[in-house]
């Protein structure tokens, strides 16, 4: 667990990077610091491993002030991943990964065996170990960077915009990989990004920062999207935060209709494996080849809605794990699911905020901002949830939110 206790950083020239920060980063979970550039998020990250020394306050690592620990030793116990991977160009991949084990004085064989395991853990082929960093793609380099950070099995991982420099497709893969790793390893992760999408995807706890490292809100993703603390946080989340919130809720329990009969004049054609191959209009010889699908219980409501929106027949296509069609979910049914998701949504949200919304007279399960109203000013939360930030150390693990955010 990391605790920032009034930690601040004032540069010698008098500019303030971070002003008295109070924050708790819970153990075994992913905390994401998100905010515009220049909000001090990297400075906050670097206070933990003493690459930046706070000029006021303290940073406590499991109760010990990091200033009392020897910097190099402290750092060997903390994994660190940066934007451009920062691999050593003169060392082969395997030796890059084994950096910290070597520094800790492990013998060569043990360090290399460990590096091999790490290579596999991050999904790279064993022969990659013999290459030099320049021979790898950006995404592969970043995987090596993660493997290097994990090699000595540190309980804490600091990640400074690790996926910002790769293209969106590779980034999505790396994010997926990190979620998988984290579900296996349960490290304490402190992750910095400017991308709210990434924050919502990866974070168990999200810290929205303003200038000088001032906290806008600390909340789990669902609470953040449903109940932004104020207008500034809401503006930072963007106009489609309602839609993004759907990405946190599983598409489950949507009633399906059989796909054998035409739906609104369109017939879903399937191949010999039962997988969707296109939409065909009965009357005209019109066809649509691309079929957007969702997998109930696995994909999110956002994917289901997307499938429904893209379908010419106004029905989302539900498939099983092998891609075989299960049935159609008419748009209306998908939209009903958005509203009826009450119990599921509640399980994914900070319950205190949820109850507060109910107490304030909201109909149960349908907070006012659930369906975004384009006419409504962002952040006009009709007096419902109390400021979740009013508690200086918000419970990072609200009961029920551990179930996974419908990933």
């Amino acid at each position, binding site marked *: 667990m990391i605790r920032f206790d009034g930690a601040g950083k004032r540069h010698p020239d008098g500019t303030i990077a971070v002003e008295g920060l109070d924050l708790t980063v819970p153990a075994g979970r992913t905390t994401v610091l998100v905010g515009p550039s220049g909000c001090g998020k990297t400075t906050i990250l670097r206070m933990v*491993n003493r*690459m930046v020394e706070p000029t006021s306050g303290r940073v406590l690592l499991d109760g010990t002030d990091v200033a009392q620990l020897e910097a*190099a*030793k*402290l*750092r*060997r116990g*903390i994994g*660190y991943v*940066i*934007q*451009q*991977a*920062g*691999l*050593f*160009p*003169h*060392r082969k991949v395997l030796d890059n990964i084994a*950096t*910290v084990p070597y*520094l800790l004085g492990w013998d060569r064989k043990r360090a290399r065996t460990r590096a091999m395991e790490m290579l596999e853990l991050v999904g790279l082929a064993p022969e990659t170990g013999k290459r*030099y*960093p*320049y021979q790898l793609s950006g995404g592969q380099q970043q995987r090596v*960077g993660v493997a*290097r950070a994990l090699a000595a099995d540190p309980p804490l991982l*600091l990640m400074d915009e690790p996926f910002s420099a790769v293209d969106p497709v590779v980034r999505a893969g790396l994010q997926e990989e990190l979620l998988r790793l984290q579900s296996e390893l349960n490290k304490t992760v402190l992750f910095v990004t400017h991308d709210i999408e990434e924050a919502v995807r990866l974070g168990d706890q999200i810290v929205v920062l303003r200038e000088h490292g001032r906290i806008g809100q600390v909340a789990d993703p669902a609470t953040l999207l449903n109940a932004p603390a104020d207008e500034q946080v809401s503006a930072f989340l963007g106009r489609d935060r309602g839609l993004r919130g759907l990405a946190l809720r599983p598409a489950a329990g949507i009633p399906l209709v059989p796909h054998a009969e035409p739906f609104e004049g369109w017939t879903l054609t399937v191949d010999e494996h039962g997988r969707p191959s296109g939409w065909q209009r009965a009357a005209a010889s019109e066809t649509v080849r691309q079929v957007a699908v969702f997998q109930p219980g696995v994909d999110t409501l956002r994917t289901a809605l997307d499938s429904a929106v893209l379908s010419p027949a106004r029905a989302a296509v539900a498939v099983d794990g092998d891609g075989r069609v299960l049935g159609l979910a008419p748009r209306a049914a998908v939209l009903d699911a958005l509203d009826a998701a009450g119990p599921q949504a509640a399980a994914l949200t900070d319950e205190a905020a949820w109850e507060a919304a109910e107490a304030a007279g909201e109909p149960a399960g349908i907070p006012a901002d659930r369906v975004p109203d384009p006419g409504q000013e962002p952040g006009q939360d009709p007096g419902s949830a109390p400021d979740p930030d009013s508690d200086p150390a918000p419970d990072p693990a609200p009961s029920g939110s551990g179930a996974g955010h419908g990933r």
Partner: protein
Amino acid sequence: MDGEPLVRWRWIGDHLGYLWGLLRDHAVISLVPVLIGLALALPLGLLCTRFPRLYQPLAAVFNVVYALPSLAVFVVLIPYTGLATQATVMIPLACYALAVLLPTTVDGLRAVPEPVRQAATALGYGPWRRLAAVELPSAVPYLVAGLRVAAVSSISLASVGALVGRGGLGYLFIDGFQRTFPTPIVAGIVLVALLALVTDAVLLLARRLLAPWAVRETVVGR
């Protein structure tokens, strides 16, 4: 030189042992100073990287040294080191080598990309250990590039040492000029060129062995 052929092969045949001796002498007085220069440039370069304020004054001093004509320096040194001693020629050549190698060392040590430097720090390298384990290996391509320039210029300058009595293959030029006999001059030119070529090839090989990861040619100006 009327009637005198450009190359008398018999003279060369008769003087093989003499030529070999001059070549060896030349290799020693030109290349040992480069190694001395390297041995000085590495610690000075590391110091300049760790304490950047040192670099500008040091670089200025060696730039001035580099600007001094070699013959003048040889002559100035004679009262202290004696005529026809190796030191008279090797001391200035070592200074020239250092003048080339100090900036390339510092450039090389500084060429480590910022993310690499930060990653090294974040993984737990102390400043000195980082210099040795991360920055120094990264500087190898720069060092080799600097060594190529320093070695070739040293090989060329060493010939001038013949004028103060210690110049290896430089004798051949004086000899041939005084006797209007072109054969030693041609032999000297060919041997100097050969020495330079072989030295360069050895350095390139060293670079391939020491820095197989450096794919691009590193160019050093001077």
